[in-house]
């Protein structure tokens, strides 16, 4: 459903992405792993239209989205959980969720989805009236994911959901991601540094190194690959 073909992205004169091609099919969990500064986040930002792509082409369901503005891309059904969570700190949890449904007009559907989110994350239900900024890191991440889900995305982009979280909470969040993928058939594109966790839930993986894709395979094969083990799994 999503095809990234030979894109290159620059920050000024510095080339961040070199000829990257990724394809995601419906219902998959795809993960993009790599070290710091490999260009993982840049890939996502290029995809969302926040950072302009200099060459190459991105298509979603056959529609060219390379030069679309971020809000148009969201309206096509691509929803992003930005790096560092970026929830609205002064809005309450419920208002944050409401913001996620900004482009939707079906009041009943929104209500139902908020209830669904509350069953998915009971913690958020407890704290629905609390200001987003007062939540703990893990809760904020849950909120960020929920907010993205409120847009009813067909493709969910996650940027480092494990960032700065305790291992136990990371586990929880990854389980939820898997659940969302299975229950709603939401396609997930997961960018992670925590390669081990990411590859465990993903179907396929891409390895990114200094702006280039160096490897791609099924997730379990990557998990057992010697090079990946050495470089990213610390085994």
């Amino acid at each position: 459903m999503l095809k990234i073909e030979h894109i290159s992205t620059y920050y000024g004169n510095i080339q961040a992405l070199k000829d990257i091609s990724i394809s995601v099919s419906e219902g998959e969990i795809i993960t993009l792993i790599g070290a710091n500064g490999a260009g993982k986040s840049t890939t996502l930002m290029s995809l969302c239209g926040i950072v302009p792509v200099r060459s190459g082409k991105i298509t979603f369901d056959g529609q060219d989205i390379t030069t679309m503005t971020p809000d148009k891309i969201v309206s096509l059904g691509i929803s992003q959980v930005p790096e560092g969570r970026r929830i609205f700190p002064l809005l309450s949890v419920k208002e944050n969720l409401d913001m996620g449904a900004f482009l939707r007009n079906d009041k009943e559907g929104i209500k139902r989805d908020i209830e669904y989110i509350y069953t998915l994350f009971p913690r958020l239900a407890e704290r629905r009236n609390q200001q987003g900024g007062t939540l703990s890191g893990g809760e904020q991440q849950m909120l960020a994911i929920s907010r993205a889900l409120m847009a009813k995305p067909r493709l969910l982009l996650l940027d480092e959901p494990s960032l700065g979280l305790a291992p136990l909470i990371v586990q929880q969040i990854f389980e939820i991601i898997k659940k969302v993928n299975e229950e709603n058939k939401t396609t997930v594109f997961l960018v992670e540094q925590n390669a081990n966790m990411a590859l465990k839930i993903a179907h396929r993986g891409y390895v990114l190194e200094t702006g280039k894709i160096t490897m791609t395979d099924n997730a379990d094969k990557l998990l057992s690959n010697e090079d990946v083990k050495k470089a990213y799994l610390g085994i």
Partner: protein
Amino acid sequence: MINLKKIRKAILTAVWFMFLTFPLMVMKVNTIENTVQWRWINLAYIGISAFIFSLFWEDLLKRRDNIASKDKKKSINNKISRKLENKKIRNISLFVLILIVVLFPFIMSMYQTSIITTALMYVVLGLGLNIVVGFGGLLHLGYAAFYAVGAYTYGLLYYHFGLSFWLCLPLGALFSALFGIILGFPILRLRGDYLAIVTLAFGEITKLVLENWNDFSFGPSGIANIPRPMFFGIKLKLAEVTNFTYFIAIGLTILTIIVIKRLESSKIGRAWEAMREDEIACQSMGIDITKAKLTAFSMGAVWAGIMGVLFAAKTTFINPASFTTWESIVILCVVVIGGMGSIPGVIVGALIFILTPEYLRAFSEYRMLIFGLALVIMMIFRPGGIIPKIRKTHQFKVKEVKE
């Protein structure tokens, strides 16, 4: 409580204050007789009040911190806002308010009515700027430019085409909104300090253009003899027209409050608030930042334009000197002091900010001193503004407990 250390500190503060205010409060130079008058009694007043004040200063600060750390519902900050949400109290105070508002011009003098009209104009200006600064989080230092656009719309359209006040009111709003969009485009990419600088420059440019483009705006000499508003085509006497202008200002204020209240809870309002908090998150929610910013600027400008028309009609004379940067800053102060994003806060802020210097005229040269002192104290004890914005989390809770 009070110990020796505190007393010593208070004495030192008092001496320091006496020293600081000595030239201003004690010496009075009589330039006609070439004598200096020494007013030692003032020094004593300053000393005593500074001593008492500093003695209790720390207690006051402590009390403030205690209140802040206590349960939020009990704090004074929320008390006022919550009280206003109570239906019964709200209805009674609304009734009293309406009574005062309606009877005011018939009881009070023309001077009083005129001052209140000015204050009401600042209420609307404050509410308009509140859209940009309070909701959108865009620091705007050139708001007076939109005010000028409104005023000159009426001035020039009357001068050239003889258009009436009532026709110019919507036209002023329209032109201002257009100006808001024109300003909006170049600053779409700017944030924070840079945004403030560019808006400041925009205000200054508008004023300079009006001052120097003689053929268009008649330069510093301005436009005189602009007619006051007419009552269904009838020309009123001065006293009547003052009252009439007052009621127009009241009407426009109510209109502004209603419209802005509706805007706040609309989709656009939510987009503005999201934009204030985080632009990137905002984009990933599918909000068009460009549109949100431009609507914030133009919707804010509309009210300045309307008030500009009213201002021109009220004073019957306009020139660029009325639309200086100082004017922009006064309006910004109204918003910040009243409470950013809070509608009742901005209203109270405007009334206090505009009326206090007016009523302090009795203290002649000290009035700005007193005013400044009041501002500093207010900023220490109520940093969120006089009536800070509260979020409506409270209401959901009540509903959900019942379920």
